[in-house]
């Protein structure tokens, strides 16, 4: 998975920078699109997985889903932060500002990011155990409602500044740009999946070691 992620990302970035044509309106600055949008979509995917695992925890009561939900949300927050940073850089070139409060999609994404950032405060404010797991799962599930709202906001609101590439009619991109974008997106999702597996394995080993330490004490 790690090799696939590296290959796809290196290939996708190379295609986007060297092969895909420059945008007629934005010029070279549009190249940020090839990492900014895949990072944002990956953040949504991570939050979605976190919520799905939270639902599984509440549904089945299986405690392993708590760690899986937590790991996915942790990664979602990292990708969310990267979305905000790369988006701000793009905004500075395109609009002349690092941030604008007038754009609903930006503000809604910031709310989504802050909501899931607060997840950690909630989680660590209670002692480990089933109560913490249930509270965290319910919180993670509430946040998932913000994902479609954030995603659809720009389409519903009729934005002025933030570009809308994917509409009901399809992608407003030439084939070469779309191909480079899809490869970057696949690479970003593969990277997230790899990091998810590595982080989850680390956390599981950590938990097993703690248990072992208690048994040996």
């Amino acid at each position, binding site marked *: 998975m790690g090799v696939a992620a590296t290959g796809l990302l290196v290939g996708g970035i190379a295609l986007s920078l060297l092969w895909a044509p420059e945008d007629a309106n934005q010029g*070279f600055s549009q190249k940020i699109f090839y990492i900014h949008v895949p*990072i944002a979509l990956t953040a949504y995917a991570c939050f979605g997985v976190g919520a799905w695992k939270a639902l599984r925890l509440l549904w089945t009561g299986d405690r392993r889903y708590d760690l899986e939900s937590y790991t996915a949300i942790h990664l979602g927050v990292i990708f969310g932060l990267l979305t905000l940073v790369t988006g701000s*850089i*793009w905004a500075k070139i395109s609009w002349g500002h690092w941030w604008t409060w007038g754009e609903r999609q930006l503000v809604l994404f910031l709310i989504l990011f802050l909501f899931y950032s607060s997840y950690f405060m909630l989680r660590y404010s209670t002692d480990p155990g089933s109560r913490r797991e249930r509270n965290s799962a319910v919180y993670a599930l509430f946040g998932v409602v913000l994902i479609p709202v954030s995603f659809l906001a720009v389409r519903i609101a009729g934005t002025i500044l933030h570009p809308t590439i994917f509409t009901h009619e399809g992608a407003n991109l030439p084939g070469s740009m779309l191909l480079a974008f899809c490869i970057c997106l696949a690479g970003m999702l593969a*990277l997230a999946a790899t990091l998810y597996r590595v982080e989850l394995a680390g956390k599981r080993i950590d938990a097993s070691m703690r248990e072992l330490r208690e048994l040996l004490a």
Partner: protein
Amino acid sequence: MTTSEKYVTAAYLVFLAAVLVYLVIIALKVGRLEQDLAELTRAAREKRSG
């Protein structure tokens, strides 16, 4: 290098730096787990022999 190129480079470098920082954190964590495992193995051996 034009202004656009500088900003695009900065955006890509931010992403690369984040991945590298993440890998360093994971590497440090693996190192810590390795130490803990060695410590637990020693404790288990001592318990069995003593």
